[in-house]
């Protein structure tokens, strides 16, 4: 029997979602509580259960794609390896100084996150490269030996090396790497020019330090997972989702885990891109609302929008995106996701002047909303949604939690409605709308802030609470159409099955476009291409299987920020259009472009991708039996309406709202001014009528 089964496993802090697609294209799913700290246990249980259900053996599995928060959590919870950082003489503190910014203004008590590598383990090496590659001070190898003695005494598990100007002139770093490998064979080594060959010493140091910090953790975890899979008879290759939405081989992920830090959210966005494209939609805004946060991302021309850097552990409000400094900076290609602290657990409260606030305080998973009856005493967004009739009362999560309306009603009345002198339903509606106002900021951050008009986009909503808020948010944002994919709660795991292998590379440069830059660009392109194809070849992908996407980072000379300009071919081949392409993009984004200033190229980027496998979705997992009607409050305009409740499968023909579509782990809210139907891919499509 040939191996035809593919498995996607998305592991979060709370749940492990596993999706199996069999040889006939049929999808099977399993959701289990996660099993920290041995996360692989839940995966193996789910895999064995799914294989058992279809009567297949482990040998029938052709591939396992995996999204994990192991690396992110190691950073967030400071449980990474004991790490040292070697720097150029005089620059021991780059990592601790960061960009010296605090994300919080007017907060005199803010505490800068302590560096991942303590000062005592940040050691300087006598060496210096000039900006043009001249070795001003050769590496002192005797001193290096003494420094390594110290690392040995300190029982360091991982070493990051980041020397000035190594992005282009890595000779000293290479030498340090060779000596480390010889002297400390069991210790992980991360060299900055291999992790991130880009100019800017803090960004490179921080990214290399994070890589070093999580590398032993990731290596150990992936080793355990591969061993467990082998025990279950699954010997197929293990691939990891990267923050960029492409997969990478487990071996590569063990070496460069910093690229796989944000794998879960990336997979969801990728799935939206893939299924959107199949439905003929290439301009999408994704909305993923969970228990504590709402996440938004933008898809243009069928491809997610990338961001060049982000921070782990920082809140991603629009303001913090400007200032930064709240988390660990990572400069690695990632799907640009704006996250805001507005989820089901966000707490509603009144301020001193009688203003109603929702979040950023959250009741989290525990105690959770009041209606869960697990000790929560503060009204949350989920409590408000319950009172509005959007959430179904009764047991959830295999009966472990019973949603209790009375408790929620009493709390919202006492803490919000009565002090404001309004009806309880109005207060609940207010909480719902204020949460939407916050979420709108995330949605605007990925669209309007980037110069895109949301009215030209379709909103794709998933996550437990996404389908609840989607219609109202689409209305506020100006989107006409909303799509809710099948199995919205397992959508990230599905995303793992529709991704190919992807690899990013970059070279820094400083070239003026159109001024004899062709030769230099051609040389950079040739180097990037040959390295890229060589690395794919090592994993068994022939060059003709790899599609290459080129782009350059360009700016008007003297300007601070670069824009990434995609190129139709390798750079050096068509530089004539480059300046005008850049000017056009600048004009579109910012409303002005100075055609007399030369355009400067600061980096060339290459992405290699293998084809993504196909996947048919159907209507998703059988939905629990739900029908009848609920009283739903649709705001002051419509008031309380007796609303029919149906399941997705019952949605045979276009139907006008008001309507609720109950799903296994969510509810789709269809307001009175919307119309809804099921498309060929099993997606619920909602269209908002004009007018307000």
């Amino acid at each position, binding site marked *: 029997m040939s191996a035809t089964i593919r498995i996607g496993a998305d592991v979060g802090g709370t749940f492990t979602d596993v999706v199996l697609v069999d040889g006939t294209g049929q999808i099977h799913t399993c959701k289990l509580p996660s099993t920290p700290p041995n996360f692989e246990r839940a995966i193996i249980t789910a895999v064995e259960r799914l294989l058992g259900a279809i009567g297949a053996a482990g040998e029938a599995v052709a591939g396992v794609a995996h999204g994990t928060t192991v690396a992110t959590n190691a950073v967030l919870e400071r449980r990474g390896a004991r790490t040292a950082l070697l720097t150029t003489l005089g620059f*021991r*503190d780059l990592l601790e100084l960061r960009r010296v*910014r605090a994300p919080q203004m*007017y907060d005199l008590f803010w505490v800068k996150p302590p560096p991942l590598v303590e000062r005592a383990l940040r050691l300087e090496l006598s060496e210096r490269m000039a900006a043009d590659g001249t070795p001003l001070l050769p590496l002192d190898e005797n001193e290096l030996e003494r420094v390594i003695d110290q690392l040995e005494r300190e029982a360091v598990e991982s070493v990051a090396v980041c020397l000035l100007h190594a992005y282009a002139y890595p000779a000293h770093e290479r030498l340090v790497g060779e000596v480390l490998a010889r002297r400390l064979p069991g210790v992980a080594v991360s060299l900055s020019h291999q992790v991130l060959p880009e100019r800017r010493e803090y960004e490179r140091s921080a990214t290399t330090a994070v890589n070093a910090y999580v590398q032993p953790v990731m290596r150990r975890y992936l080793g355990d997972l591969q061993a467990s899979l082998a025990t279950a008879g699954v010997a197929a290759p293990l691939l990891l989702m990267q923050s960029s939405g492409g997969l990478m081989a487990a071996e590569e992920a063990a070496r460069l885990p910093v690229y796989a830090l944000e794998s879960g959210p990336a997979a969801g966005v990728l799935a939206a891109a893939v299924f959107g494209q199949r439905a003929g939609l290439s301009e999408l805004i994704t909305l993923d609302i969970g228990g504590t946060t709402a996440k938004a991302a933008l898809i243009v021309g069928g491809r997610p929008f990338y961001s060049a850097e982000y921070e782990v552990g920082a809140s991603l409000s629009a*303001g913090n995106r400007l200032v930064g400094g709240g988390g660990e900076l990572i400069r690695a290609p990632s799907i640009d996701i704006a996250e805001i602290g507005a989820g089901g657990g966000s707490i509603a409260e009144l301020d*001193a002047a009688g*203003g109603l606030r929702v979040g950023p305080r959250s009741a989290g998973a525990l105690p959770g909303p009041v209606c869960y009856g697990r000790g929560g005493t503060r009204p949350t967004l989920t409590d408000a949604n319950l009172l509005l009739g959007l959430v179904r009362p009764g047991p959830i999560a295999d009966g472990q939690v019973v949603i209790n309306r009375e408790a929620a009603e009493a709390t919202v009345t006492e803490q919000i409605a009565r002090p*404001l002198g*309004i009806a309880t339903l109005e207060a609940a509606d207010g909480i719902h709308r*204020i949460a939407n106002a916050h979420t709108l900021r995330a949605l605007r951050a990925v669209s309007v802030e980037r110069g895109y008009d949301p009215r030209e986009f379709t909103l794709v909503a998933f996550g437990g609470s996404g389908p609840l808020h989607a219609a109202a948010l689409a209305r506020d944002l100006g989107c006409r159409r909303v799509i809710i994919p099948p199995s919205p709660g397992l959508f990230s795991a599905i995303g793992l099955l529709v991704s190919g292998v992807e690899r990013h590379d970059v070279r820094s440069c400083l070239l003026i476009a159109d001024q004899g830059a062709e030769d230099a660009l051609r040389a950079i392109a040739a180097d990037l291409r040959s390295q890229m194809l060589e690395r794919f070849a090592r994993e068994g992908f022939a060059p003709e299987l790899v599609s290459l996407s080129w782009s350059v980072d360009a700016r008007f000379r003297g300007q601070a920020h670069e824009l990434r300009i995609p190129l139709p071919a390798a750079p050096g081949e068509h530089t004539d259009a480059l300046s005008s392409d850049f000017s056009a993009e600048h004009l579109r984004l910012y409303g002005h472009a100075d055609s007399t200033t030369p355009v400067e190229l600061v980096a060339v980027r290459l992405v290699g991708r293998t084809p993504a496998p196909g996947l048919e979705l159907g209507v998703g997992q059988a939905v629990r039996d739900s029908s009848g009607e609920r009283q739903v409050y649709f705001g002051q305009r419509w008031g309380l309406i007796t609303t029919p409740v149906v399941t997705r499968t019952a949605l045979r023909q276009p139907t006008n709202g008001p309507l609720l579509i109950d799903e296994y782990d969510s509810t789709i809210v269809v307001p009175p001014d919307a119309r809804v139907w099921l498309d060929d891919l099993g997606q619920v499509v909602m269209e908002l009528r004009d007018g307000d």
Partner: protein
Amino acid sequence: MVIDPITREIMRNALASAADEMALALHRTAYSTIVRDCLDFSTSLCDADGQMIAQGVTIPLHLGAVPSAMEQLLSRFPDRIDPGDVFIMNDPFAGGMHIPDIFIIKPIFWDEVRVGFAVATAHHLDLGGRLPGSSACDNTEIFQDGLRIPWLKLYRRGEADGAIFALIEANIRVPDQTIGDIRAQLAACTIGERAVHELIRRYGLATYRAFTADLIIYTERLMRAEIASWPDGSASFTDYMDSDGVGGPPVPLRVTVTIRGDTLTADFSESAPQVRGALNCTRSYAVSVVALCVRAMLREQVPNSAGIFRPLLVITPPGTIVNAVMPAASSMRGVTGFRLIDAMLGALAQLLPERVPAAGEGGNSLVIIGGRRPTGESYVFFELLAGTWGARPDRDGNDGLCNPANIASNIPIELAECEYPVRIERYGLVQDSGGAGQYRGGLAIERSWRLLGSEANLTIRSDRRAYPPYGLAGGEVGAPSSNVLQRSDAKVSLPTMVATGMMHGELIHHQMPGGGGWGDPLDRDPAAVARDVRDDKVSLAAARVRYGVVLDPTDLTVDLMATTALRAALRAERP
């Protein structure tokens, strides 16, 4: 029309979002390092009467700038503001702040009716004047600071006035960057205008107007509720700048803060008269200082609207350093603003002791190197160094972090070395420079630059050598600042504020001040001292002498008995 709390919160988010979108656009399209790395700019939205209704997440010290600018604009153009107009201004005596800060203001119209203003203010790299960077402490009249732009229409009904652009370009050193940054400001205003239009389209003009009026009242109510919860009282504090910018005597900055009911008064009458050098402030700057210090005391999040200023009474007699008159120079008044903050916080520490930290580094240092490239082209390398925090009543100061009054960043070394003829040879924290205390002040930052190009102008603005950052509750002062120029034959100590020449190959080393400590150093947890010693943040000797902590020199464990004895002896020696 009454605005309910829910609509208010929703529209407030939308407006704050719009101001942030303006800030992001300005930041992304700007040219100069000051805007891109130091974030020395701000974006705001105002209502039709010029009352501020939102400010982007930008430099707090611009908080008070918009009200006085708008007041001046409206009094000068009472009925001559048309759709498509854009105003430009940088005159400190006409509602501006100092020469380098250019205001770009775009009125917003809806059906030919004025509904508001979009404002973008940015510190420009150079606006001409005596020295590169248009900032020199020893400028003695505004004409040396640079080109003074009165209120002018840069655009009339959508048409750019080429004459103004030409006049500016002809008077500045790096026109590409300055004009590029002005364009970035224009882009920000256009984005603000678009956002206001969207809101009006969505909610209607009547609701929009009712909301903006309500927002200001709501902000005022929040502010008053907080101030009313503080104990009534009055306290004074004097802090000093080492010099007047031209080598003159120390400059006292004295404030008396009075809390009564739901209002707060800050009286600067006893501060120094205006000084000879370029350290003079406009009244708007002093108002910014007061607003920012009061905001930092608040427990609540308060919207950035005109309502913030209403419960605050700020007294600034004309002719003093906090309200200078013609022809006072002001290009380097940033340092005065920082010291005013230190004075304000020193007074507030007596009234709200649990909310106020010891003094931080006392503001950013400026190091400006300006010269010519081998091609003959001018360059201005402008470094704004961000410092370190004083200790807090319950925790250490942050080591190496921008002053809370500012959101400046550092310039990437690898970028600087690729773009300018300088090499940065050291950048890091200085051992033993944090004020000792139960909670330690943040360590000072040092940085050094070697000039690789030919002879250049060097301008430094620093302070706090004679008057280092104060400690509180028994905490020690932070280490003083220093400037050392390494010439080919000797090391020369330069004054805190200086404009001089620098030759090829010379190295300038600047050390910022350290943060003040909080509480008695002999009460510091010995384990915290041991951790600092392990990290080389505190020396073994200082652990002993300043903290009374005895550590085993080999493994750095605390010798508790010896420590207790030493601390008792040190206490006994005290007067």
